[in-house]
């Protein structure tokens, strides 16, 4: 078949992934590409596996879709998140979002902290705020410690899916129903027929529901997990981090949302929870079908990886929307990014497990950290050096040696400087309002503004 211009895309959605992809494409693409979003019933059945935490990247991702905090906060249970407090492997730490602390005289900050035998997290603004359950927006363009506060969101996938779907412009044609059958020739899908007879034709299908079978060899991973969630009205003070506790065969996470505390239990034992097979497709994009969302990459919500992967997938898709119906190059490049993103995220997740057989790239990271505090980063990892640093320290990994260049300052200089920094962080944190107070104030303000 000769290549012709690509003129239509259909998103087989119904949950968060479909809504996100549709919103992204609708914003980005010219009007001569027709977009259809199909609400496939039950497609959101596994959406609880997106977890309840996003990284700070969600701010720009949502803003790019026209959804800033004034749009997101009032209508949903979304709250600000400074990260996750883990009770894990017999240890406790706050895995807070943060930018690297300053490199002084060419030496990374944590090397100085190690020399002074001071806990590195004590110098991280978002950790200090998290410990106090306090929050305020970081001021822009200033150099106070508060400006270093990095935050993501606590959210409910179903609410964000609705928010995104409601914001879709009129150009997105909508359809609903179960998929009854497909019309395909080789790797090319020409149409999806819905129950009730409606036929959806498109040049490219974004498949979040699994129209494309997961044949053997198309899925790497395999562990099946089960999850259950519930929301209970808030009692007592609410915090600014998700709290995640390890249990026998899994974990339970509680997330402070606006109307109450959400809890998510995940484990391998699946009496009456929802099941999901973790892992990823070998090829997310084959022919003219791009599998997307949990249907393509299913990372554990132990970390914010599921949302990060969704956002990255949408970035890759937006950048690689084919020019014509010949889309081999696009698929290959998308698949490369898909594999890298997932595999890098998986390294981070595996690093929570001390005794597992780590893949070589993770073993190398850990070895480098444990031998000398070096942070090895591969290309464009979803989790960056500061995330790795807190995780290593949280897991109790202690470097055997440190950078000798950290010895160039005198003890007095070192302790003076560290004390000043620590004090600055503490002083700012002490002045921050409790997260709930700040959040309520913000909503009141937005309410007034919107009349």
């Amino acid at each position, binding site marked *: 078949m000769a290549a012709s211009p690509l003129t239509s895309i259909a998103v087989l959605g119904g949950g968060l992934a479909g809504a996100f992809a549709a919103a992204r494409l609708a914003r980005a693409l010219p009007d001569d590409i027709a977009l259809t979003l199909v609400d496939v019933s039950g497609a959101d059945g596994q959406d609880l596996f997106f977890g309840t935490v996003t990284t700070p990247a969600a701010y720009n991702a949502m803003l790019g879709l026209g959804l800033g905090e004034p749009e997101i906060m009032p209508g949903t249970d979304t709250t600000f998140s400074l990260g996750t407090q883990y009770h894990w492997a017999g240890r406790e730490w706050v895995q807070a979002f943060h930018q690297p602390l300053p490199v002084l005289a060419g030496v990374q900050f944590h090397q100085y902290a190690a020399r002074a035998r001071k806990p590195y997290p004590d110098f991280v603004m978002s950790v200090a705020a998290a410990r106090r359950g306090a929050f305020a927006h970081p001021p822009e363009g200033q150099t106070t410690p508060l400006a270093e506060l990095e935050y993501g969101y606590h959210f409910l996938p179903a609410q964000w899916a609705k928010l995104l779907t409601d914001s879709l412009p009129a150009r997105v044609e909508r359809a609903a129903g179960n998929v009854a059958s497909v019309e395909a020739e080789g790797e090319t899908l020409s149409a999806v027929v819905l129950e009730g007879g409606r036929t959806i034709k498109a040049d490219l299908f974004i498949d979040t529901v699994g129209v494309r079978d997961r044949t053997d060899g198309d899925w790497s991973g395999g562990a099946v997990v089960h999850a259950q969630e519930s929301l209970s009205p808030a009692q007592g003070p609410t915090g600014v981090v998700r709290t995640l506790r390890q249990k026998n065969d899994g974990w339970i996470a509680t997330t402070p949302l606006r109307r109450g505390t959400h809890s998510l239990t995940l484990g391998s034992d699946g009496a009456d929870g929802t099941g999901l097979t973790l892992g990823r497709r070998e090829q997310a994009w084959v022919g003219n079908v791009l599998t997307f969302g949990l249907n393509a990459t299913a990372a554990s919500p132990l970390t914010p990886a599921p949302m990060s992967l969704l956002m990255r997938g949408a970035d890759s898709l937006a950048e690689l929307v084919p*020019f014509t119906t010949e889309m081999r190059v696009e698929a290959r490049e998308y698949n490369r990014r898909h594999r890298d993103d997932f595999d890098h995220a998986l390294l981070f997740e595996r690093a929570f497990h001390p005794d597992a057989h780590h893949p070589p790239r993770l073993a*190398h990271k850990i*070895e480098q950290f444990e031998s000398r505090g*070096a942070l090895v980063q591969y290309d*464009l990892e979803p989790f960056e050096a500061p995330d790795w640093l807190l995780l290593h320290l949280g897991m109790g990994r202690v470097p055997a*040696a440190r950078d*000798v*260049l950290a010895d160039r300052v005198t003890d007095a200089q070192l302790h003076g400087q560290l004390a000043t920094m620590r004090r600055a962080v503490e002083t700012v944190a002490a002045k921050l309002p409790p997260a709930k107070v700040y959040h309520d104030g913000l909503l009141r303000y937005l309410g007034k503004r919107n009349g």
Partner: protein
Amino acid sequence: MGITRICILGGGTAGWMTAAALSNKYSSLGFEITLIESDAIGTVGVGEATLPHIRMFNQALGIDEAEFMRATRATFKLGIEFCDWGRLGDRYIHPFGDYGAPVDGIEFHHFWLRLLQNGHTSELDDFSYPVLAAEAGKFRMPGPDVSRIGSNFGYAYQFDSGRYAKFLRGYAESRGVTRMEGRVVEATRDQQSGGIASVTLDDGRSASADLFIDCSGFRGVLIEGELETGYEDWSRWLPCDRAQAVPCEARGPSLPYTRATAREAGWQWRIPLQHRTGNGYVYWSEYISDDDATQQLMSTLEGPATADPKQLYFKTGKRRKLWNRNVVAVGLSGGFLEPLESTSIYLIQEGITALIELFPTSADMERDAAEYNRRMDLGFDRVRDFLLLHYVATQRDDSPMWRYFREMELPDSLSEKIEAWKSRGYVQRYEHGVFLPPSWIAVMAGQGLIPQGRDRRVDARPMADVIQMTDSIAKQSHAAVASTPDHGEFLKRYGAVDPSIMDAAE
């Protein structure tokens, strides 16, 4: 026991850069740093065009820019002009800087592609201040606001490498580096670790150390001569294996860029310095004799030669391990990828940076070496693909060398990149390694690979907007160039010109 005694073998660009950087970092900790060099052997004597990264290197040493430029008779460099690469008669400049700036998060060149693909004429160069400034022989420093056209570019230098080494020698010696002159004839090994314990000079003196930096040039006296580390031969992809270099008197105004002209069996460089022009012919000995190469080189000089041509031999590739036991190979001893994009000094710098970050804390250096080698291998790989691109993104088939490249089977990593560009103007991004997307765009577009498609998102704007936006950027870049001084004038005003040259000129 810590690692406190460092011995650097070699006093070329690599040796003295290493000595300067290490003395800056470690002298105050009481480390002993020794550098051994042999006047009889001398240095390779080439390597005069750099990449913008060298500015960070100099800055970290606290070097004053004008003073350094006076001492090394340096000129500014905005990029490299490539002549006759895509086709005979073609030329383009690969600048140190972006084309335009992203719009709505979409790389600018896609807007340019939309113009082209809709029948408009538009020159990519009009969106690059450094290209236009270079063409006009002009230069000024980038301003602080990088969002402005005329500020989002980088620059490097073209300098006298012998003078640079001397300049850094002064720096290093004043920070306690001990220099020994003589020829290393022997090394002794540590029985336990298998590493090198000491080296002995021809006059019987010896130097022992915990860590050896092999900067001995192509010989690789320690990394290969002693440790037999092995060499990964890349001449299948980068087959040029010889060069001749000759300086000549400069003619015309001093230009802020290097030139690389493709020839039938290799290519020729032209590097303008304050006091002379450096020239060289890099060639594949299979397809041209040394005599013919000399003849071609000498017949194309712009002014009288000021020395005899120097013959150089090399094999492209890299050491199997750049760090082996307690020896780190920095410079030509570690590998060489031919000088087409001025990457050697950059790789020296990367080596030094990585060494400092991974400086060994005990005699067991295996882990430090593992990470060092991983990083450097990636750096070399990425440079290799980019260099090879120049030879294969071409329609030339007018000589056996060009036909060889036509028929070559490319590494997958490169053929995928070329295909993604050709089909939709897509350039892979990565975080580590030199040559960001704008460099790939410069070479691929400059050598005549024009994509068929583009990023679909650029079509979301009305065409009239795109025309207006691109016109306005082109106007801004031309206006910025109009108010830029001549390169020669800027050098003088900046106090960068060696006074003895000023005198001579008057």
